[in-house]
């Protein structure tokens, strides 16, 4: 028997296995040991003595390069070929669990599918290659391998881990895939979340009311309504008395506290109007602008309320904002 050492190198040029060509003619081994490359493809089978019994080289999509020299000419009962998957002896297709890969075509034999019932399973709409349900590894098979027939571990590391764990625990790859599918389907959906908190501030200029309507999670709606007026000074800017709305009020502001025109602390609600129109108490013309109920006087476009009423309204708004941080309170001043 001639003996010549031959090396098997991976894509990085590193020696993956070494064998002796003298063993090339050997028949099936008793106990076979598989040597795989970095993609998991079986490149060499050795017997219990370390003698090479079978060698394989694969094209990127799994088709085997026909060779007849040395150990390439021999064969064993091993059926684990491209990326370590079982090659069907009759069809030559590789079984990945979810699908068969036709190595000769470099394509899956059936389109991809998902236990979750997705329209385009495992697709990334930002990556057109994933929309091809027959394509193997996005037509880029050199760097990684498909784990279960649905894609690479890089695309779905969680499922890969599940399959790997299953196999490590003595289960078959099919059982691992089932476990992964069950995991992908996820736990039963949680009960729907209660409606988000809602707070809405509305001024009805016709009925002379301003109302803050708020909802607390699952506890119904509450209202605070006060009497307000929208009489506007004749010197006010055009449109000052018009309806307007803002997407989110700022809330109670101390910016004008203590000024006769706006009333005492807490009686100024900033509606976040770009024109500066707010809801406030006070009244420069009035005899007692800081009294709890000071009376009524026109504004330059703002909505006027009695001091104690505006303070009460502001407290409700502040309380809502405190209990629901980040919740927006839209404001609408309308003339129904």
């Amino acid at each position: 028997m001639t003996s010549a050492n031959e090396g098997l190198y991976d894509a990085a040029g590193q020696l993956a296995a070494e064998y002796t060509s003298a063993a090339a003619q050997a028949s099936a081994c008793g106990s076979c040991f598989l040597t795989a490359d970095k993609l998991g493809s079986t490149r060499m089978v050795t017997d219990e003595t370390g003698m090479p019994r079978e060698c394989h080289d694969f094209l990127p999509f799994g088709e085997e390069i026909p060779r007849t020299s040395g150990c390439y000419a021999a064969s064993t009962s091993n059926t684990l070929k491209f990326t370590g998957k079982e090659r069907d002896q009759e069809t030559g297709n590789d079984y990945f669990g979810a699908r068969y890969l036709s190595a000769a075509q470099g394509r899956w034999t059936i389109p991809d599918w998902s236990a979750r019932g997705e329209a385009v399973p495992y697709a990334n709409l930002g990556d057109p290659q994933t929309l091809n349900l027959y394509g193997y590894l996005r037509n880029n098979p050199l760097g990684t391998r498909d784990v279960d027939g649905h894609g690479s571990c890089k695309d779905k590391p969680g499922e890969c881990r599940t399959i790997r764990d299953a196999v490590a625990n003595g289960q078959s790859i099919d059982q691992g895939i089932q476990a992964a599918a069950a995991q992908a389907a996820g736990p039963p959906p949680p009960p729907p979340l209660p409606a988000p908190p809602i707070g809405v501030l509305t001024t009805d200029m016709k009925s002379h009311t301003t109302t803050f309507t708020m909802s607390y999670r699952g506890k119904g709606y509450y209202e605070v309504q006060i009497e307000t007026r929208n009489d506007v000074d004749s010197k006010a800017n055009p449109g000052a008395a018009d309806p307007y709305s803002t997407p989110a009020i700022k809330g109670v502001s101390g910016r004008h506290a203590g000024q006769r025109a706006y009333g005492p602390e807490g009686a100024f609600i900033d509606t976040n109007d770009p024109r500066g129109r707010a809801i406030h108490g006070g009244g420069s013309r009035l005899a007692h602008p800081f009294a709890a109920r000071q009376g009524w006087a026109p504004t330059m476009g703002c909505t006027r309320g009695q001091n104690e009423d505006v303070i009460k309204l502001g407290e409700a708004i502040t309380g809502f904002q405190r209990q629901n941080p980040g919740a927006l309170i839209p404001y609408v001043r309308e003339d129904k």
Partner: protein
Amino acid sequence: MREPNRSRSAQTVRYAFGRPILLRIAAFALLNVPSAIMTVDQAPGTYFDLGPHLVEDFRGTYEFKHKHVEFVQTAAGGYLARSSGDESPQEDRLVIESGYVCWVLGGSNGTWLKIRVSFRSGDRWEHVFRGWNQQYVVTDTDLAVSVPAGGLQHCARLRVSWVAHEPDMEGPQEIVLYLAPHLGIVKRELWSNSSKYHEEVLTKYARPQAN
């Protein structure tokens, strides 16, 4: 309502808040208030003869508000103007200073109104309130004024005007007061930039029974 004293010539009527001046101070009860209760002694021979228990009820253009004012003579001889109703209860003071009747606001102590104890048509004076330089002018003294409380003759009209620069009040402002003999202020108009935005009129009053 008692008829105004027609024995005087309307052209020569002199509106007077003379001694005992506090009897006529009650006329201010009608200012800025829907109603008033006045308890004063009747002063013989004075033009504004309000009687001991005048009850007046004003209703302005702001119909949702009703307010009552009671003028109370204090033990010290002064007068308090106690107001109540939809607006917060207030207790203002009426004082006489240098020939003027001054309505002094409770709390702030600002002189809300300053009217000469006696005046004639054409009289003018000034008063600074909240930084506003208010000009008082008596424009008429023989007007016929009709209010819900009745038709009133020989009424005086007093204009108080100033220019405001406030966040909610800008430009020329004016208060027009109508004073009826024996009743005091029976009507008040508020103007801003030549536009009337508020009016209060006397709707009801009652004279209390004499002790």
